């Protein structure tokens, strides 16, 4: 049954490309959207009885190597959601090459679904490569100079990451004999961590950090995000980096290398460093999307810091922040896209007081930035609260204090953004601006709605997490 998540998008790609380019252009995005929504539906019901029942009846190939647990289901649902939003946002672009865009998004979804469902390191590497290749092409889909340069940097850096990960897999294969998560974990817990496994660990940490964009390894991320077309940068920031980088790290920490403290402390250090330096870097950026890129480095730092704890509550908090960050970061990218499509520029210094002309974008951006800064009562606060509680329970007091005080930096650079772009007197020359088109407004409203609902109904979310045994 899990293979459906791969086959349905594959079917989608084939259907879109059958009738040739003219019809395909119009039909592509809607078909991709359908696939995304089906995916959300399937992911959400994956834990339910219906799904288990069907699984016995229909036996598809690759049954053994693809499984779905709670973590996978949540990420699958988030992937579907963000992909859907990105597809809607693409309609907002002037000359959308929607046929190619639609099919490439489906390919990326296949890649991400694969990464999420596999249970052995080598196929994990294979699906990582799929997602990487598809996202290179997505970034440079309009073939302008900037996106090409950003894609090139992303391509080169992920090539380095691939080499490192492959080397690590090779060493692990040598020492353990097989690549399955369980096999490696059992072997390590039995045989203990020999020097060569440590070398493999270090390579793995470096490779995955490049993929996730943690601080010393992050350099490709700002260029790739800011130069990519709006819909693609939202997809990238929202879900691609998270699945390929953050999900893999969390999966490896919890399932494979749970006994080795090296990986945990390493990722906690990297997480804390990225929180602080990411926030500082975002402070004086003039380009709206570049600032959001650095901000997402900082927020990913929170997820990694919490996952690095290794405790069940740490994992649960990281998962909640994974979902929240996916929603409010994509929301901010949607706002950035709306502002860029209406005012024609991303330089914040040339914008001013847009809230009066673009009330919905202005309002949703306030929801987005407050949630990112971890200001209650929105969703960002609650996940950061759980992260700090997890840190505090595990005794990592210094990290907890860094995590709490860093949200002041986050708040600072978002206030600068608000003052420069939305909250203030309208800058002369921008009088003609109207509210962004439906393609930009609808996703921002949906995402803002999710952020506010998760925030306000947090007691229910808490009870749900408890029922799922996370807390």
């Amino acid at each position, binding site marked *: 049954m899990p293979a459906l998540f791969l086959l349905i998008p594959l079917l989608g790609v084939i259907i879109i490309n059958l009738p040739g380019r003219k019809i395909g252009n119009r039909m592509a995005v809607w078909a991709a959207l359908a696939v995304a929504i089906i995916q959300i539906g399937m992911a959400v019901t994956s834990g339910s009885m219906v799904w288990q029942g069907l699984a016995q009846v229909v036996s598809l190939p690759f049954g053994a190597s693809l499984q779905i647990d709670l973590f996978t289901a949540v990420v699958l649902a988030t992937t579907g959601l963000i992909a859907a939003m990105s597809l809607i946002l693409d309609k907002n672009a002037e000359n959308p090459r929607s046929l190619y865009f639609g099919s490439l998004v489906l390919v990326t979804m296949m890649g991400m679904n694969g990464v999420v469902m596999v249970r052995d390191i080598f196929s994990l590497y294979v699906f990582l490569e799929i997602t990487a290749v598809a996202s290179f092409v997505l970034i440079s889909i309009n073939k302008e100079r900037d996106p090409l340069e950003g894609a090139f940097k992303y391509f080169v850096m992920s090539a380095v990451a691939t080499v490192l990960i492959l080397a690590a897999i090779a060493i692990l294969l040598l*020492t353990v004999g097989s690549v399955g998560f369980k096999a490696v974990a059992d072997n390590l817990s039995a045989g203990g961590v020999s020097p060569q496994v440590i070398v493999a660990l270090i390579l793995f940490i470096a490779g995955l950090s490049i993929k996730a964009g943690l601080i010393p390894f992050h350099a490709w991320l700002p260029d790739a995000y800011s130069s990519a077309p709006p819909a693609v940068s939202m997809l990238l920031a929202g879900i691609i980096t998270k699945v390929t980088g953050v999900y893999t790290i969390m999966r490896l920490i919890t399932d494979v290398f749970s006994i080795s403290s090296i990986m945990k402390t390493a990722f906690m250090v990297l997480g804390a460093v990225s929180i602080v330096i990411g926030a500082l870097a975002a402070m004086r950026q003039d380009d709206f999307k570049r600032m959001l890129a650095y901000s997402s480095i900082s927020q990913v730092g929170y997820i990694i810091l919490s996952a690095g704890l290794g405790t069940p509550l740490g994992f649960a908090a990281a998962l909640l922040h994974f979902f929240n960050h996916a929603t409010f970061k994509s929301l901010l990218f949607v706002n950035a896209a709306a502002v860029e499509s209406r005012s024609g520029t991303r330089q914040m210094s040339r914008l001013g007081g847009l809230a009066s002309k673009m009330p919905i974008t202005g309002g949703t951006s306030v929801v987005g930035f407050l949630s990112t800064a971890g200001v209650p009562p929105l969703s960002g606060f609650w996940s950061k609260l759980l992260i700090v509680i997890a840190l505090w329970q595990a005794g990592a007091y210094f990290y907890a204090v860094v995590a709490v005080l860093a949200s002041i930096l986050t708040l600072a650079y978002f206030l600068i953004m608000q003052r420069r772009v939305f909250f203030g007197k309208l800058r002369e020359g921008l009088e003609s601006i109207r509210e962004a088109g439906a393609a930009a407004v609808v996703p921002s409203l949906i995402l803002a709605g999710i952020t506010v609902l998760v925030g306000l109904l947090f007691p229910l979310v808490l009870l749900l997490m408890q029922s799922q045994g996370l807390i």
Partner: protein
Amino acid sequence: MLDSSMNVWMVILLSLLLLSAVFAVMIRDLLKAAIALAAVSVVLTVIMFLLGSPLAAVFELSVCAGLITAIFISAISLTKPGTQEELAAKRRLRLKRFIYLPILLVLIGVGLWLAWPSLKLDIAAVGTGAGLSVQQVLWDARSLDILGQIIIILAGVFGVVVLFRGRKAR
């Protein structure tokens, strides 16, 4: 498992491999670089045979030595060779950057040589799959990779279509 005679061959082949790789990077003419690259793949194939993994060797020989080299050569033949000064300038630039390469190699070599005894590499008995046929390897042991292969090819196709097909309008 590695007896002394194998050791000697290995050292020769590995140094040959390194030599042709450096040659491929340093050579001025693109065509010669492509051929050097093919040479690297051939030597790699021989090493794989020696190490007892025939299947991988076969793929390496056919794909890397054969197919990729062919594509490279056809692409290079289409391009206009750069003038002498450009080539010389590029070479001088490359030389300046790669001065450090040999020093780095030597360092890593010495480091490995020293650390080797303490590393206590226990190479696990890896299922070499010598006895398995191609069909069993592809379909049973690594069946998911087939699906992965298909999707990667799909992504590659879209990449080529999107990036290289220039539109009529321009």
